[in-house]
């Protein structure tokens, strides 16, 4: 028995070393950094100046950071509902036996293979452009002026424009996950429900949803982590209204263009806050999934 245990540790050792090197060490270093005033990311420890919780106090006193927290909360909630809801809807449609389902699946998944930055610029320059953007063109073809009148990139609307773009960018991945989950639900259950007289909605609510609850909680967790890492779209869309904590952290650590002052400690504090949010979301997710089972 003892020999088996030592073999186990021996086999796990490479993975443990890797985890310690690429996960544990950076996390601990970031945590320690967050309590220091540090001139640059690679500055030696001799240049670190201990400031206690001052970086955290400074962080929450920055209005742009508070705006970024609010933004990410809205993205997590609204875009989460929209992305996961639409993905489930599309997956249901694509697994219902419609023609050209493979083609539609490919089209929906296409944004996943394009660089997120490029995707952001496509939306910004070719879809939302107020002069010659796709939405402007569509709006002008309609008999009413409502759509054409929307200025998608104006300060008050650009956040929602970014969120819509982000939703479509993520849709393909989650749709594919749901397609995989839905295909595993036994057809016999639907047939039995049909014989019992259940309509489509009843079959969806009483069979599909409970049987893919495990996958849904996994999808929610993946989406939550992706929300925390929301970076490329805010970078492209720019401005305070689209700022997210990840972009804020990046700027705090590496500096903003003409602002030549910087304290990496504040960026590290922001990273620690994000880590704590991620842990809370993970625990919440585990709690929501406590009775869920992966049936297949």
């Amino acid at each position, binding site marked *: 028995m003892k020999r088996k245990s030592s073999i186990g540790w021996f086999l796990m050792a490479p993975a443990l070393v890797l985890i310690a090197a690429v996960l544990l060490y950076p996390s601990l270093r970031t945590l320690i950094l967050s309590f220091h005033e540090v*001139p*640059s*990311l*690679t*500055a030696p420890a001799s240049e670190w100046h201990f400031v206690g919780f001052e970086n955290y106090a400074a962080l929450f006193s*920055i*209005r*742009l*950071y508070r*705006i970024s927290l609010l933004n990410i909360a809205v993205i997590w909630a609204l875009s989460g509902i929209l992305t996961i809801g639409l993905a489930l809807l599309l997956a249901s449609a694509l697994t219902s036996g419609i023609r050209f389902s493979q083609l539609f699946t490919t089209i929906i998944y296409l944004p996943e293979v394009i660089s997120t930055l490029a995707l952001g610029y496509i939306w*910004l320059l070719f879809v939302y*452009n*107020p*002069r010659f953007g796709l939405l402007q063109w569509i709006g002008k073809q309609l008999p009413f002026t409502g759509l054409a009148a929307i*200025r*998608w*990139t*104006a*300060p*008050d609307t*650009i956040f929602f424009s970014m969120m819509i773009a982000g939703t479509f960018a993520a849709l393909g991945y989650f749709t594919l996950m749901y397609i995989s989950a839905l295909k595993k639900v036994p057809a016999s259950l639907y047939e039995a429900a049909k014989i019992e007289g259940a309509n489509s909605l009843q079959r969806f609510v009483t069979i599909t949803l409970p049987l893919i609850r495990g996958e849904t909680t996994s999808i929610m967790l993946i989406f939550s982590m992706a929300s925390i890492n929301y970076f490329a779209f805010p970078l492209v*869309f*720019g*401005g*305070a*209204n689209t*700022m997210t904590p990840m972009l804020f952290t*990046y*700027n705090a650590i*590496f*500096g*903003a*263009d*003409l*602002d*030549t*002052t*910087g304290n990496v400690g504040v960026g590290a504090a922001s990273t620690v806050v994000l880590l704590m949010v991620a842990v809370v979301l993970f625990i919440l997710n585990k709690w929501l999934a406590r009775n869920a089972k992966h049936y297949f």
Partner: protein
Amino acid sequence: MHIPTTAFAPCLAVLLLGTTSALAQAYEADLNYWSSYGASETQAEVLRHAAAAFMAENPDVSITFTFNGRDNYQLLPAAVEAGRNIQMFDGNSQQIVSTFSAFTGTVQPWIDQGYPWTGDEPYSEYTMPAMMALAKQIDTADTIRFVPMNPQAVMWFGNRAIFEAAGINTLPATWDEFVADCGKIRDAGYTPITTDPPYSAIIFGYYLSRLKGEAFVADLVQGNGAASWDDPAVLEAARAIETLAANGCYAADVDANVWPAGQQDMVIGEQTAMYLNGTWLPNEVQASTPEGFSWTAFAFPDVPGAVDDAGHLAYGSYGIAVNTANSEAENAAAVAFATYVNSKFDGEMADLAKAIPVGPETAWPKELADVKTVFEHTTGKYRPQTAITMNGDLTPILNGAMMKLVAGQITAAQFVDEIRR
């Protein structure tokens, strides 16, 4: 025939004198150069040409570029501190003396010597005196730490044809003349001004700097000192811009501009007269600028009740700097190349990249002819893009609020409220 050895003495003396300058210096170094220009930018093209020529003249020198674009200021410090083999780099001069300060060495000994490409004149005396003065002024170190390159300034840029169509023959020198000219341009059927978020707040920064001086604006945005958003001058500056918006000086949909929409629209559509931007503008839009497009430029005008006049210009420069970890031989070769770029290839930089030249004999690009006039009348200096951009945590908020103000969606008072919230 016997020739006395003393006959060679004058020739020998000339040769020996030559070796006391850099004239006959042989450089030997492998230089890794990290640049703030993107690989496809015209400045990068000129740097590559210069490097090829320099290496041909100095076979023991190799120059390898890494063109990081503007992200260089974020990538370089970590790379240098992590021990990457980087001998030289370029960047905004303000970034060199602050963000890059810890690893930026002096270039003084090598710019104080002459080179074949400066006619053996010490480079520090050969190049534009204003840029050498700037290099001293902005650095707290008691030495010069970069070779100035591509001077830049922020001012009003205009489409000359629209000014002429509106009957404006003299460029505005005061704020009242500026507002009146906006009216003439609007009445002639054109859009007087455009902007987009990254440049939108500079008009406010310039106006306020004129009114209260740069130190006030710096204190205001950084939250230091006594400067306050409640100061009446803040509202006064915002009201001046509110008046522009109320007079139809900005397009109604200007708030939807996302950079580079404003500048592209200006040259492609040829319906917009002015844009407060940098001297890099003609270069950035040169690919889409129609033939025959004629640029004009003028300083941000005098404003009523100001402490600074229109002679105060927001300007700076790029610079080429060296790593403190370099050997003497690397520094000598790196600075020699930096001076080579800014003398022998100064003309190509002006031609291809529409850059302000630093060499005494180099002709200015025709697109920047009026910029030269502004430079000649400069009496004082503001930070590049004015001190309003000094706080990276505030700038995005300011830009967003300013886009609403210029679009006429909020009043000056609401603008100030939105910033000080």
